[in-house]
C-alpha cells in the first residue's frame, strides 16, 4: 500500500516538482498552498506524513504545525531556509518531528520519510509493558500512561521514550538515539533529540524543569532513571 504524503508550500513550482519526484518514489501526493488549506485537506483526508514549509503566507508554518499536531500524531517534517536559526528549534517545539533545509534532494528526503514510516518495529525481546515511576509504556499497544491516565505522544516521542525505557539506567548518546529513532546515520542534529526530550518531559514528568525520569548526562546523552 502506498503512503500518502502532504506537501504544504506556497510555491506552486516546488509543489509540482516535488509531486513528480515523490510520485516517482511511489508515494501518493496531496498538496496545499497555505496553512488553512493544509489543515482543511488534512481534516478530510489524513496523510501519513506532512512536509511543511515554515515560510507560509497568512497564518504561518509554526501555527499550521501546532494545529496539525492538535489533530494528529502524524510525522511532520518541516522545511526551513537555514539550519542555524531559531526556526529549527521553534519548529521542533511547535511539534515537528524532523526538518530539512532548502535546497534538499528529494531522493534523500524520500528515503528519510521511508525510515520515519517504517519505524515501529521494535526488538523482539521488548517486554509487553515498560514501567518507571508512575509511568507505564506499552510498546505493542503504542500507549503511555502516567498515574493511570493516558498521555498523548507523537510517534517520534513514543519511539524515543521506548528506546530510553528499554535500557533503564543506561546512558544513551544523542547519536545512537538519532540513529535508532530518526534513522540517521550518526550525523543528525542533536537538537532534534534535545527538543524531543524536552517535549517528552512535559508529558511524563511531574516537574519538567526538574526531571526525575529522563535525565540529562552532560556531554554524554540521556538516560532513564529506573
Amino acid at each position: 500500500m502506498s503512503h500518502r504524503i502532504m506537501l504544504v508550500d506556497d510555491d506552486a513550482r516546488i509543489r509540482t516538482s516535488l509531486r513528480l519526484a515523490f510520485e516517482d518514489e511511489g508515494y501518493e501526493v496531496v498538496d496545499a498552498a497555505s496553512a488553512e488549506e493544509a489543515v482543511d485537506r488534512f481534516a478530510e483526508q489524513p496523510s501519513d506524513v506532512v512536509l511543511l514549509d515554515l515560510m507560509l503566507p497568512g497564518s504561518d508554518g509554526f501555527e499550521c504545525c501546532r494545529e496539525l499536531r492538535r489533530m494528529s500524531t502524524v510525522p511532520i517534517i518541516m522545511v526551513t531556509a537555514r539550519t542555524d536559526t531559531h526556526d529549527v528549534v521553534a519548529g521542533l517545539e511547535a511539534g515537528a518531528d524532523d526538518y530539512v533545509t532548502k535546497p534538499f534532494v528529494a531522493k534523500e528526503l524520500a528515503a528519510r520519510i521511508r525510515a520515519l514510516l517504517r519505524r515501529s518495529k521494535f526488538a523482539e525481546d521488548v517486554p509487553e509493558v515498560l514501567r518507571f515511576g508512575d509511568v507505564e509504556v506499552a510498546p505493542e499497544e503504542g500507549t503511555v500512561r502516567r498515574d493511570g491516565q493516558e498521555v498523548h505522544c507523537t510517534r517520534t516521542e513514543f519511539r524515543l521514550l521506548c528506546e530510553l525505557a528499554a535500557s533503564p539506567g543506561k546512558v544513551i548518546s544523542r547519536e545512537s538515539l538519532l540513529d535508532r529513532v530518526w534513522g540517521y546515520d550518526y550525523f543528525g542534529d542533536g537538537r532534534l533529540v534535545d527538543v524531543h526530550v524536552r517535549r517528552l518531559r512535559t508529558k511524563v514528568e511531574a516537574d519538567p524543569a526538574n526531571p526525575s525520569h529522563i535525565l540529562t548526562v552532560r556531554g554524554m546523552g540521556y538516560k532513564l532513571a529506573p
Partner: protein
Amino acid sequence: MGSRFSHLGLRSRVTLAFALGALILSASMGAITYLAARQVIIQQRKTSALHQAYVNASLVRSALRSPTPRIPELLDSLDTLPGSRSVLERRGQWFATSISIGKQALPRLLRAGVVGGSAATQSFLLSNTPELAVGIPVPSVDAAYFEVFSFGSVARTLRVLALALAGAALVTTIAGAVIGRWLSGRALRPLGTVSKAAVAIAGGRLDTRLPTDDSDLEPMARSFNHMADALVERIAREARFTSDVSHELRSPLTTLNTSLEVLETHSGELSSRASQALALIATELRRFGRMVTDLLEMSRVDSGAAELSTEEVAVGELVVHLATSSGAGVPAVLDPAVADRRVRVDKRRMERVAANLVDNAAQYAGGVTRFAAEHSAGRVRLVVADRGPGVAEEDRSRIFERFYRGTLSGRRGETQGSGLGLSLVAEHVKMHGGRVFVEARDGENRFVVELPLADEPVRAANDNADNAPSGREVPRR
C-alpha cells in the same frame, strides 16, 4: 603651543597650561609683593636713620659748645639704633665709637662733601654688608657728624621674604598642575565612557547606549546613541535581506534540483543527445547550488548572523563520518592518540569544511590521497592530503582569502570553483577556535584543520599558547 606640544596628550597639555598659568601668576604677584615690600622697608629704615642722625647731630652741637668737651664719652652717650655707629670729625681730628668704622671706612666723596659743609647720605658696602652713611656738618662747632647704619638685617629680611615668595610660587605652580590634571581628568571622563561604550558595541553588545542626563554632553551622547541605533538597524536590515535573498534563491534551486532528479529518473526515455545535455545541466546545477550556498553562508558569516550549534563528539567517529560525507574517496586514517578524544564542533559546519577541502583537492590536485586525524600538542589535526602540484610558498597564507586563486588563476575551465570554498573553511574553523593552514610534507600537500580538544586539560592548552589561533572568542550556544 599647538604644534610644539601636539605630541602630548590632551590631559598633559591642559596640565601644562594650568601649571604655566599658575607659575606666571604667582611669580608676578611675588615679584610685585617683593618690590613693594622692599621699597617700604628700606624707605622706613632710611627715614628713621636720618631722623636719628639729625637728633644726634644736634646733641653733638650742644655738647661741643661746652668749653671742655669729652668727645669719646659724648659719642658713647648718643642714643643709637642697633647696628649704627657714630663717627665725628672736629678740626681735622676723627673720633669713632667702633673700631670697625673710622675715617677710612667712610666713602671719600661723602667725607669731603660733609666736611665741606653740605649734608649727604650714601649707601655702600662694608665687608659685603650694605650700609647707609649719613653725614651732617655742624659748622657752629666746627665739626661734622657721621652716622653709619647697617642694613644687614634689612637685607636678611628681604632675603627671607624673597625665599618665602618663591616657595609660594612653586607651591602654587604645583597646585595649578594638580588642579589642571584633575580638572582635565574630570572633563575627559565622558570620553572614557564613550570609548568604553564603543568597545562594547564593537564587541557585539549592540544594546549599549550612553546616558543623556548631562546637559553639556547630551548632544554627543545623542549622536553616539543615534549611531548605535543606525548600526543595529543596518545589521538587522542586512540580516533580513540575507534571509529574504536566501529564501528567494533556495526555492528555485529546490525546484530545479527536484525536477532534475525527476529527469534523471526518466533518463532512459531520453535520446543520447538529450541525456548528454541533461548530464551537463546536472553538473552545472550542482556547482551553481554549491556556489549559492557558499555565498549565502559567507554573507551570514560577514553579517555576524552565523551561529555555531556545537556538540561534543568523538574525534574518530567525526573523522570517519567526514571522510564519507565529503566524498573523499579514501578511508579515514586515525591516530590512536586522538581517536577516542572529544572535540566540540558544529557538525554541519565541519561537514562543509571537509567537503570544501575535498572539492578543492578534486579540482586542483586530482583528488584526496589521504584523509586523516592526527594528534599535535594537545590539539587534533584533520589532514586532507593530495599529491597534486601543490600550493606555491607565497600563496600559502593567501589561499584562504576570498576569491584568491593564486598561481592557478590562469587555469580556468572545467574545474573552476566559486573561489569561496577555502575562505569559508577558514571562517568556519576560526569560529571553532581552531586554525587552518596548508603545508608540503613528505611529497604531500596537506591542508590541515587544527581544532582544540574538548577534553584537553587547561594546562596543556596554555603550554601551546603560541600555537593558538588569534584570540577571537568562540561563540557558543
